[in-house]
């Protein structure tokens, strides 16, 4: 797959290679290297030898430490505390997994996870992640473009949106047993078709070169780096191409607070807090948090601003 260009790092912010490689004892491999999800360790070890050659390894900013990426999560299916998903997701056994693609497509199909990986492979994408709660990370995902899967499904004329549905397993997900003190389950999300087809839009199956841990949305999740994190629906079971704007979980919960688009925008505040800046997770100290100004479209304006030409981003927040 042709490399897609996206914002690159300032040299000063790049973690020294040796440091980064050593922390990833299990190396995912270079850009474009494909991994089998299960048993990825053997493949990864085989790829370690080629890691030194990865001089072109793209790194927008300093990646957030792996332990923070996997222990500071919003995944309300497991609980509302940031530590809950890592702590309380042990009962969730995602494999075997399949994803159903249906709706306005010529080739509806239920894909086994292995077949998705075999067909579309995995590449590494280092993306910024901006949570609507005004904190951010930089995360090395592994996965493939949603566009590739959608092209295989072949959307019909009149298709305008893509709806996503997450998993519903109350017996394995304590957050789904909380009744009124929760969202409505299963979690649902949606994108406009052109957003879904954008090359930045990723279906992630791994992080830091390893299969997605349960707390990060195992085994397959959406990553839309120019939107607030809640758009990145986790543990996807179904993708439906449709002609109307699909419902989205947080919008159903509080429509005046969480829009359908949810594009990162420092000029459009959340009704209850400012979005002008963000806390950088993994940096700073107990008595001094690290903060930085938030960028329009999370720094991906050059790539995605065109999708929203002529729209009032205050109205369609």
């Amino acid at each position, binding site marked *: 797959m042709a490399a897609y260009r996206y914002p690159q790092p300032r040299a000063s912010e790049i973690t020294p290679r040796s440091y980064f490689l050593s922390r990833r004892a299990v190396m995912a491999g270079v850009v474009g290297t494909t991994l089998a999800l299960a048993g990825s360790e053997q493949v990864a070890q085989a790829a370690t030898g080629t890691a030194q050659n990865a001089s072109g390894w793209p790194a927008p900013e300093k990646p957030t430490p792996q332990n923070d990426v996997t222990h500071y999560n919003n995944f309300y299916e497991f609980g509302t505390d940031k530590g809950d998903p890592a702590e309380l997701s042990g009962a969730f056994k995602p494999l075997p997994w399949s994803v159903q693609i249906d709706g306005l497509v010529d080739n509806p199909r239920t894909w086994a996870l292995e077949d998705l990986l075999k067909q579309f492979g995995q590449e590494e994408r280092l993306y910024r992640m901006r949570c609507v709660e005004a904190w951010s990370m930089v995360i090395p995902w592994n996965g493939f473009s949603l566009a590739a899967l959608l092209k295989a499904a072949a959307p019909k004329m009149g298709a305008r949106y893509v709806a996503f549905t997450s998993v519903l397993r109350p017996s394995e997900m304590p957050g789904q047993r909380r009744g*009124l*003190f929760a969202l409505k389950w299963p979690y649902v999300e949606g994108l406009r078709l052109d957003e879904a087809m954008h090359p930045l839009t990723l279906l992630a199956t791994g992080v830091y070169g390893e299969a997605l841990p349960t707390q990060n949305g195992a085994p397959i999740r959406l990553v839309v780096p120019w939107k607030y994190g809640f758009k990145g629906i986790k543990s996807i079971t179904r993708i439906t191409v449709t002609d109307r704007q699909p419902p989205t979980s947080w919008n159903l919960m509080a429509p005046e607070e969480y829009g359908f688009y949810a594009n990162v925008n420092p000029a459009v*505040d959340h*009704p209850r807090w400012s979005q002008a800046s963000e806390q950088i997770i993994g940096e*700073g100290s107990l008595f001094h948090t690290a903060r930085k100004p938030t960028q329009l479209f999370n720094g991906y304006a050059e790539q995605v601003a065109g999708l929203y030409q002529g729209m009032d981003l205050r109205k369609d927040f």
Partner: protein
Amino acid sequence: MSSIPSPRRRRSRFSPVTRQVLLYLFFLLPAAMDIAQGMAGTLGPNPTSACLHDFGRYAFRFLLVSLAVTPLKRFVGVDIMLYRRPLGLLAFTYAALHVFFYVVVARHLDTHILWQDFSSRPFLTFGVLTFLILAALASTSTRRAIRALGRKWSPLHKLAYLAMIFACIHYSIAFKTWHVEPFIYTVIAICVLALRMVPRSARRKV
């Protein structure tokens, strides 16, 4: 129950004031532990917000406990009146730490961000009001202030109940969804208020 055994006074080797101070110091331990862990890097990926939230919860807990002292004595017969003041001061101390972590550590004293926060987030308004009340009560809790205020002291310190109500609102609407914990605290607060409403004459019948 006709006879609640009156608590026997056990002799303590410490004077009442010493006991008050010891209780206060003992319950500063959770704060010390959080800060020690935060500095050691074992408080998770966001130690600042862990401290911020822990201290807020402790402030609320001590406020509830300090307001439960009177009903405990009236209806249960447990007399910990001696500790009401240190418990109230603990509520204020934790509230002050909570505010410090928000204003200084999380927001870097940035007046622009703080103004935006305070003007757009109703839950913060209730938080500020709660803190102002607690500060007023803490500063009038010295023996000298009690004497100087005379009869006015008691109605002034009834504001603690208002602080409790504001704290319930502050905590309940601080989250993106309804949470169980603030709900539990609110139920306790309602019980405390309800017991306060029981007329004095009914004391012996309960």
